[in-house]
């Protein structure tokens, strides 16, 4: 069935280091893929989205490339900041149902 897998539940890094949060998906069609970020006590907000194969999408220093061949949409940043501490969700919409399938989320914790 349709699903999103985020393999890391918690990632703890020191400020200034690079990060990659994994996202793989399973579906029979070619959806938009999304990354949402949720800071503590706030609503989830869209960080990135893409439906174009092999094209890098960037926003606020984060970037991701949709690879349809491997069904992946990993989120990366070259140098994390304290303000990047948040919960990150990967998601895609179910075909023709208006329902978003979310991964379980990855908590990113940045230390000084």
């Amino acid at each position, binding site marked *: 069935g349709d699903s999103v897998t985020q393999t890391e539940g918690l990632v703890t890094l020191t400020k200034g280091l690079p990060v990659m949060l994994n996202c793989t998906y399973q579906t029979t069609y070619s959806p938009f893929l*999304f990354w949402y970020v949720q800071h503590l006590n706030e609503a*989830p907000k869209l960080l990135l*989205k893409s439906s174009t194969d092999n094209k890098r999408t960037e926003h606020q220093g984060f970037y991701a490339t949709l690879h349809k061949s491997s069904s992946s949409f990993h989120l990366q940043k070259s140098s994390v900041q304290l303000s990047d501490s948040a919960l990150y969700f990967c998601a*895609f919409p179910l075909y023709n149902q*208006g329902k978003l399938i979310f991964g379980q*989320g990855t908590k990113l914790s940045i230390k000084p």
Partner: protein
Amino acid sequence: DMKVTQMPRYLIKRMGENVLLECGQDMSHETMYWYRQDPGLGLQLIYISYDVDSNSEGDIPKGYRVSRKKREHFSLILDSAKTNQTSVYFCASSSDTTGQLYFGEGSKLTVL
């Protein structure tokens, strides 16, 4: 101004009382959602509404009902609230062309 507004933001109720959470959006989106999120966890879909009076159960509808009489408003109702319904509730609306969700700021419900 693209906005999803939730009221109230904070609510404390006693077990057995009725709860009404309200949500409005100014983007004329057809599809709206109610999610709940427990601490440190992901988003669980309670109900989805495709338009006025066109509502479908999500993954955890038990104990909840919804009402959508105008496209811009979507209400979540808890008849006889239970302590295990203590949670943060998020409303969202969708741009159906991509499936992107726009979230409200959340309503924190405590049931004593």
